[in-house]
């Protein structure tokens, strides 16, 4: 058990260093990059939540934009009437409930069919949101702006400004990380792994795999919803394209690129893709999706376990030598 303790010590050491760097880096970068980092934190929550499903339970969803969008829209609706916290709670709760409903239907299928059915749910929601008859509610292609509510901590209020947004999103990212870490290390997390590896065997050990799959789908939908609500808050704007396939697919790319089943990897993946797209769009222009595709193909061929996954394997291999 000595090696386990050492590993835990190493993990927390790296974690503390990372937190310190992220906490102070915003003082040293241009305000534009502070915004990009804030966005990456938000995407990181989405990616990490999706990793629970893809990397740990072994289910590939192409419909998580639905929960991201639900979180965003219901946060936006609610913030017309309520402050930040109630609006956030409403966004997350609606996204979680929708995820539970979509999950209950989708997990009856397996493999490709699962990916397709989750995609269809999101696709239908996307077109409903685009429907002109709902223009007064969703704003369709135009979307709508809303007044971002200030964040109240009871006796004092935090102003809506870039630095506080940065720390707010960082705090939520860390909180999400600890929740996800707890889940994957728990007995429940072991069963998620068992399902990824061999679902039949897991049920032949007495585990109700349906419940576990539904729960991990719902958990991941909850994080997508949280991410969507924060995204809406950051832009104080929502539109129907937050429910689009592009959003779902991007999230899958973050997970696969960063390394499924590593939690930190997908955050890294979200960061790399976001910075990459930002760079390409400002310097090269048009070809951003083609170049992203090429990047993804390169990573999948040379690093099939994603960036973090490959680092981990390399580390274990060296230690064994």
């Amino acid at each position, binding site marked *: 058990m000595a090696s386990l303790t050492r590993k835990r010590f190493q993990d927390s050491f790296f974690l503390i260093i990372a937190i310190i760097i992220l906490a102070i880096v915003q003082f040293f970068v241009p305000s534009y990059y502070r915004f990009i980092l804030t966005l990456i934190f938000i995407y990181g929550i989405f990616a990490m939540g999706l990793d629970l499903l893809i990397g740990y339970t072994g289910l590939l969803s192409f419909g998580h934009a639905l929960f991201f969008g639900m979180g965003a829209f219901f946060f936006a609706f609610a913030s017309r009437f309520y402050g930040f916290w109630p609006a956030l709670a409403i966004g997350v709760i609606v996204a979680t409930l929708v995820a539970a409903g979509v999950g209950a239907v989708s997990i009856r299928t397996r493999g490709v069919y699962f990916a397709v059915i989750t995609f269809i749910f999101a696709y239908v929601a996307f077109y409903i949101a685009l429907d002109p008859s709902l223009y007064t509610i969703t704003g369709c292609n135009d979307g709508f702006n809303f007044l971002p509510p200030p964040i109240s901590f009871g006796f004092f209020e935090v102003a809506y400004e870039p630095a506080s947004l940065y720390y707010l999103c960082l705090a939520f990212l860390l909180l999400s990380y600890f929740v996800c870490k707890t889940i994957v290390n*728990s007995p429940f997390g072991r*069963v998620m792994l068992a399902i990824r*590896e061999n679902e039949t*065997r897991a049920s032949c050990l*007495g*585990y109700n*795999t349906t419940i576990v799959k539904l729960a991990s789908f719902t958990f991941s939908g909850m994080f997508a919803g949280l991410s969507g609500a924060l995204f809406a808050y950051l832009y104080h704007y929502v539109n129907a394209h937050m429910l689009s396939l592009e959003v779902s697919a991007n999230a899958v790319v973050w997970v696969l690129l960063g390394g499924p089943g590593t939690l930190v990897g997908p955050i890294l993946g979200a960061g790399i893709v976001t910075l990459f797209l930002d760079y390409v769009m400002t310097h090269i222009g048009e070809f951003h999706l083609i170049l992203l595709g090429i990047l993804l193909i390169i990573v999948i061929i040379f690093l099939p376990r994603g960036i973090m996954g490959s680092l981990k394997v390399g580390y274990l291999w060296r230690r064994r030598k």
Partner: protein
Amino acid sequence: MATEKVILRTEKLTKAFGGLIAVNNLNLTIPEGEVRAIIGPNGAGKSTLLLMIIGMLKPTEGKIFFKDKDITGLPPYKVFRLGISATFQTSNIFPNLSVYENIWIAAQSRCKGKMNPLIHHRRLKDVEDRVERILKRLNLKDLAEEPAGKLSHGDQRVLEVGLALATDPDLLLLDEPTSGMSPKEAAEMAKLIKELSKEVSIVLVEHNMDVVMRVADKITVLDKGKILAEGTPKMISDNRRVQEVYLGG
């Protein structure tokens, strides 16, 4: 008969796939503590019988009782919770997890809090002891940190028995545990089964007659879904009809 407790009983169990009757009106009674081997030519209905017992196939007719509890039609995860455990014809493990993690997942399944998402899995009581005990017993200790999928075929089969044992079963169903094994590995598996038979009732489906003769208390011979003969290994090997259909005259 009345003095013995019955661990597994089937009553007029029948499974038809369209016109093909794989298991035909089968009445099987297995007393507690027995090692029962089920043999028969290919297509005799042995695997179908096992799949029905564990709930992976629904019987067309008839009933299955485990310790007098009707388990007919229960989904697999409910059957396995009652204290039945199984190994499968093809290796059925968690290939990318270590041997230790494999056995952990199995051992955890009988624990309170096995689905708790909020505590560290290492904090579950007794699981660690049980995993260590099984690693030691199956001589897998040196391989504990290896990914299960990297083990040799023979070791994977042993690991599978380990998974089944870790759930602390009262009845162990072994579906061809020595298939694809070298004679030496098969002999070791036979020794292991013999040892296990002191603690748990076993139903063994097996083609390797050496193994069957060494470990079985009683043998049931199936042919075309029906019981052709039933008795001690000696009785079965002396039975003319069994020799004709199965042992090759």
